[in-house]
C-alpha cells in the first residue's frame, strides 16, 4: 500500500516511530499525483520543489525529537484562492494568471508554522463560484470515483486530491457549500467551521459575510486535527472570533447516547435522489441505535435560503471583485483610456459565471432595487438565523443529506445555472447562519458513487458537531477507495 493512502494520524504515528520519513511520504503523494493528475486535474500548481524542502526540514525536526505538532511532515494541499507568498495564486481565473502574492494567508502561515508540507494549489470554480469545478478558467477537475463525473465544487480540486491520495488533507473554502458538497461527491470528510473561527486573511474574498475556510480529510479525527491547527484569533481579520475557541477533538469518542438530533424536514423530498434519502435514513437509524433521540424539525426558511444566498453572495462579490481592474496585478488588456482598459480587462478576464454573478449582485444593490433584493435578503437572513436558533433550543445537532444527489456527469448542469445552484441547497443555510456544518461519507450508491451526510451544530458548537460526526463515521464504516487508485497503483 502506498503511504499516500494513510490517514494523518496513521502517518504522524509512523513519522514519530521512525518507520516513515516525511520525504518518503511526500514522494508517495507526488507519485500518486503523477499517476492521477492527467485524469483528474485536481491541482493547478503542484509545488514539488518547495514541498521537498519542507519535508526535509520536517525530517530534521522529527529526527531531533522536536516535531512542531501533529501536522509536521504531513502533505497538505491548498485551494488556489488562498494567497501563498511567491507561489502563483489564480483563483482559477484568467484575470489572475501569473499572480504571485507577496504574502501568505493566515491559514498558510499557520500550516507552515505547524510543519505541514504544502504540496500545491488545487483547482476550483473561478473565484469559488460554482458547484462542479467546471467553471475553472484552466479546465475542470474530475471525480476520482468516476472521471466522467464532476467532483462537486467549488473546492473540487481539494476534495479530489484528498480522495485520490495526492494529498493527505486539503483546505477548501465554503461560501455556500463549497467544502461540504464536493466532500459529499468525492467521499471525504469536509468541514465548514463557525464563521470567524478560521481567519479569512489572505483568502481571496467571494462573499465576505459567508466565506469560511475548512479542511478536507479522510477521517473525522483528521479533520479535527487540521481544524485545531488553522483555527484561532487573527488580529488581521476584524471578523475573527475573539472569545474562547471550541476544541473539535473534545468529544470525538463520547458517542451520541442521550443526544437529541434533529432532521430538517425541508431538506428532503423532491430533487433528492432515492439512494441519497435511503442512505440518510440508514444513518439516522444507526444514530438512533447508538442511543440518540432522533426528532423531526421544521425550518421553513430553508426553502428560501437558496434565493436569499443568491442575492447576498453576488452582492458582496460584485464589490469584492471590483479590485480586479488590470491596474496593479494580473491580466491587463490595453485600452485607449483607463476606463476602457478596466472594462476590457474585466470583460476578457472573468468567465461567464463570474460575470453573471457580478451583474446579479450589482443589480441587487442598485438604487431602486436595493430594498426589494439585497435589503429583503438581509431580512430573510435574519429570519433564517432566528429559526435555526430556535431549533437549537430543542436539539443538540441538526442533520441532513450533504447533497441532494451523487456526483453528476460533466456538462450535465452547465447550461442550466438554476439546476447547478440547487446542488448546494442542503449546505447554504449554515452559511447564512454562520453555524458550523460538516460532511461525513456514509456509503456508495449502486453506481459506486459516494453519498455524504451533513451534521450541523450551533455557533461554536464544533465539539458537538464532531462528536456526532465521529459516531456517523463509526456507524457507516466507510472504507471504500476509488477504483482509479487501485488501477493506477
Amino acid at each position, binding site marked *: 500500500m502506498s503511504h499516500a493512502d494513510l490517514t494523518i494520524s496513521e502517518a504522524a504515528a509512523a513519522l514519530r516511530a521512525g518507520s516513515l520519513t516525511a520525504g518518503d511520504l511526500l514522494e508517495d503523494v507526488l507519485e500518486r499525483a503523477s499517476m492521477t493528475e492527467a485524469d483528474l486535474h485536481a491541482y493547478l500548481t503542484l509545488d514539488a520543489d518547495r514541498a521537498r524542502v519542507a519535508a526535509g526540514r520536517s525530517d530534521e525536526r522529527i529526527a531531533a525529537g522536536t516535531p512542531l505538532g501533529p501536522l509536521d511532515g504531513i502533505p497538505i494541499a491548498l485551494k488556489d484562492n488562498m494567497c501563498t507568498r511567491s507561489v502563483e495564486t489564480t483563483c482559477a481565473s484568467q484575470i489572475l494568471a501569473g499572480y504571485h*502574492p507577496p504574502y501568505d494567508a493566515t491559514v498558510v502561515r499557520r500550516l507552515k508554522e505547524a510543519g505541514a508540507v504544502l504540496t500545491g494549489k488545487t483547482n476550483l470554480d473561478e473565484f469559488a463560484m460554482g458547484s462542479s469545478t467546471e467553471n475553472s478558467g484552466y479546465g475542470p477537475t474530475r471525480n476520482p470515483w468516476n472521471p466522467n463525473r464532476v467532483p462537486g465544487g467549488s473546492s473540487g480540486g481539494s476534495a479530489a486530491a484528498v480522495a485520490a491520495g495526492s494529498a493527505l488533507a486539503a483546505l477548501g473554502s465554503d461560501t455556500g457549500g463549497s467544502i461540504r458538497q464536493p466532500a459529499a461527491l468525492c467521499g471525504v470528510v469536509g468541514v465548514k467551521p463557525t464563521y470567524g473561527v478560521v481567519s479569512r486573511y489572505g483568502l481571496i474574498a467571494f462573499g465576505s459575510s459567508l466565506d469560511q475556510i475548512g479542511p478536507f480529510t479522510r477521517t473525522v479525527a483528521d479533520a479535527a486535527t487540521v481544524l485545531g491547527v488553522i483555527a484561532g484569533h487573527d488580529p488581521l481579520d476584524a471578523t475573527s472570533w475573539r472569545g474562547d475557541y471550541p476544541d473539535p477533538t473534545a468529544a470525538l469518542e463520547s458517542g451520541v447516547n442521550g443526544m437529541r438530533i434533529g432532521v430538517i424536514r425541508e431538506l428532503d423530498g423532491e430533487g433528492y435522489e432515492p439512494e441519497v434519502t435511503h442512505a440518510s435514513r440508514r444513518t439516522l437509524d444507526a444514530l438512533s441505535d447508538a442511543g440518540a433521540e432522533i426528532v423531526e424539525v421544521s425550518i421553513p426558511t430553508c426553502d428560501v435560503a437558496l434565493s436569499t444566498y443568491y442575492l447576498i453572495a453576488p452582492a458582496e462579490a460584485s464589490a469584492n471583485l471590483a479590485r480586479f481592474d488590470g491596474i*496593479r496585478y494580473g491580466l491587463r488588456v490595453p485600452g485607449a483610456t483607463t476606463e476602457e482598459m478596466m472594462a476590457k480587462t474585466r470583460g476578457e478576464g472573468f468567465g461567464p459565471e463570474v460575470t453573471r454573478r457580478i451583474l446579479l449582485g450589482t443589480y441587487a444593490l442598485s438604487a431602486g432595487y436595493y430594498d426589494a433584493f439585497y435589503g429583503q435578503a438581509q431580512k430573510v437572513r435574519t429570519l433564517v438565523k432566528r429559526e435555526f436558533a430556535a431549533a437549537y433550543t430543542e436539539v443538540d445537532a441538526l442533520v441532513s443529506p450533504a447533497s441532494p444527489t451523487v456526483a453528476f456527469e460533466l456538462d450535465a448542469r452547465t447550461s442550466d445555472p438554476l439546476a447547478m445552484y440547487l446542488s448546494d441547497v442542503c449546505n447554504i443555510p449554515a452559511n447564512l447562519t454562520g453555524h458550523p456544518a460538516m460532511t461525513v461519507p456514509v456509503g456508495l450508491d449502486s453506481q459506486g458513487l459516494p453519498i455524504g451526510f451533513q451534521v450541523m451544530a450551533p455557533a461554536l458548537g464544533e465539539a458537538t458537531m464532531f462528536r456526532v460526526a465521529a459516531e456517523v463515521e463509526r456507524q457507516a464504516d466507510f472504507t471504500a477507495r476509488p477504483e482509479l487508485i487501485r488501477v493506477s497503483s
Partner: protein
Amino acid sequence: MSWKSPDGWEAVIGIEVHVELRTASKMFCGCRVAFGQEPNVDVCPTCLGLPGALPVPNVQAIEWISLIGLALNCTISEQSVFHRKNYFYADLPKNYQISQYDIPVCHDGWLDVDVDGGTVRIGIERAHQEEDTGKSLHLGDGGRIHAARETLLDFNRSGVPLVEIVSRPDIRTPAQAKAYAQQLRAVVAELGVSDARLEEGSIRFDANISVRPVEQDELGTKVEIKNMNSFRSLERAVAFEIVRQVGEIEAGGTIVQETRHWDEEAGVTYGMRTKEGSSDYRYFTEPDLTPIVIDADWRAEIASRLPELPATRRTRYSDAGVDRQVAQVLADAAPELRGLYDAAVEAGAEPRVAANWVTGEVTGWMRREDTEVVSIDGTRLASLLAMVAEGMVSASAAKEVLDGVMLGEGEPAAVAEARDLLQMTDTGAIEQAVEAVLAANPDAVERYRNGEAKVVGFLVGQVMRATQGKADPKTANALLAQKLG
C-alpha cells in the same frame, strides 16, 4: 472682501469638509501616515487592495473622530457602521471606498461662528469616518485627465484616515462660509488630530450652493463646487457661484444639479462634462468589519481628553476683561503665548494688560527676532507689568526691559537696573533738573506766561531729556506747573 447679496435673493450653503487625520498608521492597516514621501513606499496588501487582504480599524482614528464630534457638540453613536461605497477609479485600489452611510460615528452638532461682528450657529449634520484614496498624476498636456497620455499612481495616501464633516445648509453668505471653514480648521488644529494644512490637502472644503427668492421656503437646485485651495478662494468661489446662479435664473435659465470646479486664476466656476447624472454608489454594510461600539465609559474617557477650544477660550478672556479683539487674537495664538498669558495672570498680572502685552509687545519682539521661542515666563512678565503700574519704569522703558528679559539678561528689576532704566523717584533730583531747564529756556517760560500753555509739553520733554528719560513724567509735570506758577 466687500459683498452684497443680489437683491431679493438668498443663498443656501452647506459645506463638506474632509480632514486627514495624522494618526501614526492608516485607517485599516499598519502603514505609516506621512506626507511628502517617495511614491508607493508606505503601502501593504491592504491599502493596495491586493486579493485576500482585509481591513482592521484604527482605534486611534475612532477616538479622534469622536473627539472632533464632541468638539462640534455632536452626539456620538453608541454603535456605528461602516459601508462600502462602490465606484471605479484608478486611484481607489479596491474600487470601493470604506465609508459610512446611515449611521456615522458623529451626528447632530453645531459650531458657533463669529462673523461680521456677530455670532451664527452652523448646524453639523454628521461627521463620518472613511479612508482616503491614492493620488493620480496625469502626464500629458496640462495635467488634466482627459489630455493625459499616461497616469502614474501613488498609493501612499491610500487608506489614510479621513473624516468628512457635513454642515447643515445654515450658511447664507460668502463671509459666513469662510468664517465657518476657518473656525472649523482652528478646532481641528486645536485637537491636534490633523495637520489641517490646506496647501497639502490635509483639510479640504467643498461647498453646496443653491439660491432662492428671499420669500421662498423651498430650496433651489444645488450645485457642488470643488477645488478651493484657500479660505479666500472658498469665499470668492461661493460669491461667484451665487451671482452666477441668480444671473442664470433671472435670465430665464434653470440651474442644473452638477459639480463645478473653481478656477482660481480666472475667478470662475466651470462645470465638468456633465455625464455623471446621479451616481449610484450601491452602498451596503462592509462585511469585513463589525460595528464600531463606543460605550459610555469609552466616550467619557475620550471626552476627558477634549482640550479647551478657541471659542471657549475667547469667552474666558473676554469675561476676564480682555478687549474683544485682543481676546480673539489671543484665543487663536500659539499655545506657548496663551500659556504665558495664563501664567502671568496667575502671578498677579491684570488680565487686560497681560493680554495686550502678550499679543502686542511679546509677539512683536518674537516676530522681529524671527523666533517662535517665548523666552519670558509668566512670573517675569507679571513683575514687569507691576513695575510699570508702580511707575518704576516708564511704558517705553518697559519695552527695553522686556527686550533684556527675553534676551536672557535676568529678572526685570535686574535688567532695568543694569540698563539704567529705572525712573527717578527722587523728587529733589527731578526738581534740580526742572530748575535747570527753566533757567536754560527763558523764552519758553516767557511764552508760557503769555498764555501759550502747550509750551509745557516742550519743557517736560526737556526735563526727560536732561534725566535721560528716567524722570517720572507726572512728577516732572507737577513740578513744572508749580514753578511756573
